[in-house]
């Protein structure tokens, strides 16, 4: 059963009571919330996601809620995992963004069975491209654009490498987080794109999430093999430019973007080195999304 098969009332009811058991790639979340943006965001962006078994295993029990006494004056959203709050509360209208950040937090704080790179990853024709870069380099925007043009989205910011499966890349297929001007850039680039609730004035500015392609969600159990590692950099007047990067430089930059590199020790080093070894590595500057997408199409054909 998928989330979209629940009626609106059923979804609301589950969120408020037993929780919605949602599966995204290898993780099963039980999500509870009494906040409207969470309900709206899930209904709009997660409708194709499979629901987990009511009596089955749950990896993370999460809640985004507002306490009764905070509902009227300055309503607040609090994120809880396993009953504890890892972050400060946010204004209630940022509740869906908070859920997304919270789900990411669960993965990078606990899922050390994987090597976790802070990077987007997409696949086309059996070739998976890892887009690694610090925040603000246009990595998510590029990932969103590729997803809109037929690439399979594995993740917009958590690249999971599974050492137990020969370093295969494990998809999550969750929505893409976009900030500020990128939201309108994407709307113009792909007018039929579907977005979740807008959260204004967050610590990252205005944030909204793009609905993942149905095909990516349907294939969330299908791992991929890394073929390219690309470090994108958006700058307003840049001419599109793909430059080869030495494996040594690629390794160092990738390690910097790896959340649990030192935690995994030798395993982390080996996994990263093997991925760099099997990939073609590039630095990529761009300003125009159409041109950027063309470059990626050529890479993967």
């Amino acid at each position, binding site marked *: 059963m998928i989330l979209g098969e629940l009626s609106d009332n059923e979804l609301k009811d589950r969120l408020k009571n037993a929780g919605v058991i949602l599966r995204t790639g*290898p993780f*099963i979340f039980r999500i509870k919330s009494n906040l409207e943006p969470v309900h709206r965001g899930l209904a709009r962006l997660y409708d194709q996601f499979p629901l987990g*078994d009511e*009596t*089955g*295993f*749950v*990896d993370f*029990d999460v809640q985004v809620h507002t306490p009764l006494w905070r509902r009227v004056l300055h309503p607040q959203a609090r994120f809880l995992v*396993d*009953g*504890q709050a890892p*972050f*400060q509360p946010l204004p209630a209208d940022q509740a869906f963004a908070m859920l997304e*950040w919270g789900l990411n937090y669960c993965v990078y704080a*606990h*899922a*050390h*069975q994987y090597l976790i790179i802070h990077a987007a990853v997409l696949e086309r024709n059996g070739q998976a491209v890892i887009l690694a870069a610090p925040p603000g380099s246009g990595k998510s925007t590029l990932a969103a654009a590729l997803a809109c043009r037929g690439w399979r989205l594995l993740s917009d910011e958590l690249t999971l490498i599974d050492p137990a499966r020969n370093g295969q890349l494990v998809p999550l297929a969750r929505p893409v987080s976009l900030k500020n001007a990128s939201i309108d850039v994407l709307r113009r680039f792909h007018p039929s794109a579907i977005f979740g609730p807008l959260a204004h004035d967050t*610590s990252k500015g205005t944030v909204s999430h793009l609905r993942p392609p149905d095909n990516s969600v349907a294939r969330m159990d299908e791992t991929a093999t890394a073929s390219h590692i690309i470090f994108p950099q958006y700058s307003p007047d840049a001419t599109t430019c793909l430059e080869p990067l030495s494996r040594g430089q690629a390794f160092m930059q990738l390690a910097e973007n790896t959340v*649990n590199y*030192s*935690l*995994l*020790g030798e*395993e982390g080093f080996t996994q990263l080195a093997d991925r760099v070894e099997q990939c073609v590595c590039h630095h990529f500057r761009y300003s125009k999304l159409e041109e950027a997408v063309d470059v990626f199409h050529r890479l993967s054909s």
Partner: protein
Amino acid sequence: MNTRLTTRPLIIQALRDPGLLTQLTPGQWNDLLPQGRQSHLLARLAHLIRSQGRLDALHPSMRNHLRAALVVAARQRRAVHWELTRLQKALATNETPVLLLKGAAYLVADLPAGHGRLFSDIDILVPRAQLAQTESALKAYGWTGDPHLDAYDQRYYRQWMHELPPLRHPVRGSVIDVHHNILPDTARAHPDAARLLVDAVPVAEYPGVYVLAPEDMILHSATHLFWDGEFDHGLRDLVDLDALLRHFAQDAGFWNRLQEHAVHHGLTRPLYYTLRYVRFLLDTPVPDKLYAALNDKPSTPVFAAMDWSLHRALRPMHPSAQLPGDGFARWLLYVRGHFLRMPLHLLVPHLVRKALRKRPIKDR
């Protein structure tokens, strides 16, 4: 006694009998997992089930979480061993050896309590006369104090506490707490720090590195657990104590020596609480004779309040394990912890100052 109180939280049942994991329903595991995470005991459980060779027999959903916890524990093991080589180098010119406390000591001395033990800081003990020399030696090797501590914080540590303000290595991120005793100077009991150092035992693998004598290791952990106000790590510390007691009890005469050390250092009360709760929660085989002989209880009403509070605070902080009154119990113990640390004429101004100061904002 209500039935919930007598039913042990799943994480405790599983630590006592790791084989239980192979028989859990998904619903039970969904309770156990967060209990293990909240009480920092998942890696310990993972270690136990792995050493029984049954990790692979578990459902993949369970195995993944246990594997991830083992990754974290393995990283800490590597980090502590590496950090110790750095410490040895920095303190090579010190006249006295490095004495490790708590988690790092269990790990380096290869005690069962160190297996799958998670911790954040490295604690060391030096003679008070060596405090300044130790601090400057560590600073010369790159550790730095927290620049946000003001003059009052500095005075709080240096005049009243039993440790220096934490020292952090900016590159490796490791934190060292340098102690000169196991309780603050302002506390009621005054353990004999000189005797702790004399009784310390060398670590075979690291020349010049020592850990506390077995009896003192128990007393330190007991003191830390029952005289500190915060019980976030309470159950984890009790599990340490259980593992240490079971291990040391293999030595003839251990229990008698434990009692002697407790009397000498004035720590019979925390030892009494320790024995009471390890027996109750973890079935640790404590000789009845010692338990009866020790019997260092406070007055009846205080004891009743302590018992009520500890039965709550020593459970995992998760709805599936908490008893009604959990928050209040932890608050009572917090207040008591402060009260034991400092006499009222110091404590009241200190707490007022803490309350008035702007609370630091946690990063998202």
